[in-house]
């Protein structure tokens, strides 16, 4: 599966119009989450260290990304894969290092009168010998 992903991402970067048309399951483990919540007059923050596995679906034909109720787009750059997804209240951006599979996730939840930010660290599944780096 990861080999397919590597090929698909590489092709999407080099020949966008010829990218493999398929849906890819991009699997990752969220390791640490920092949650910052602010009301009208006070704020609080929490750290969650319980790992959570999530699967982001990437449609390489439309560059569409989905995760549960969130949907958006993804973009393959030289150094990183960026994924942006939104729902009614939540906006999130995933910044994935193509070499290491390490990801930083930022999310913003507007839930009046609360404002919530979530900052996560995640690791995408990259078996030994495989990377998200474009093949020569």
């Amino acid at each position: 599966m990861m080999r397919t992903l590597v090929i698909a991402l590489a092709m999407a970067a080099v020949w966008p119009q010829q990218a493999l048309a398929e849906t890819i399951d991009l699997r990752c483990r969220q390791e640490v989450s920092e949650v910052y919540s602010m009301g009208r007059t006070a704020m609080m923050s929490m750290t969650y260290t319980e790992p959570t596995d999530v699967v982001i679906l990437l449609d390489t034909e439309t560059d569409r990304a989905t995760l549960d109720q969130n949907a958006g787009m993804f973009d393959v750059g030289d150094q990183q894969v960026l994924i942006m997804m939104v729902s009614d209240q939540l906006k999130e951006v995933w910044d994935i290092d193509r070499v290491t599979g390490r990801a930083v996730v930022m999310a913003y939840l507007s839930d009046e009168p609360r404002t919530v930010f979530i900052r996560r660290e995640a690791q995408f599944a990259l078996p030994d010998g495989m990377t998200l780096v474009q093949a020569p």
Partner: protein
Amino acid sequence: MLRSGLCALALVCAVVPPARAEVITIRCPEVTATNYEMSGGAITETQTRTVEFDGIQLNLATGEFRVGDVSGVFVERDGAFVAMAHNEPYYGAWEVNRTTGRYSAVGHTANADGSWTFIRHEGQCLGPNMVVPF
């Protein structure tokens, strides 16, 4: 007489704890900022750069903090101070580890044209093993 005065001052300094400053500034000389701009349901621009960051001002008496034109409230938690602000249209959260000085922040801005931006800061505010004095 002078010697006696110096001794007296030294004694006072040694015995009386330093006055607790009401406003402290945590300076962060090396900050990497990344902007993620979204428009029309797509990522339109990503930019990473080093920025000059004036630092974070904490008012210990009121629990308020200020970063440039942005202000809000802060708390101390697990060896870090954490601050949040919502100054429409900008919302953000800042965190500095009191021991390591490691700094991170996330922010969100809703632009007038319907686009929006995430801002991420990573940096070093204090040297290793230094403690934010509050």
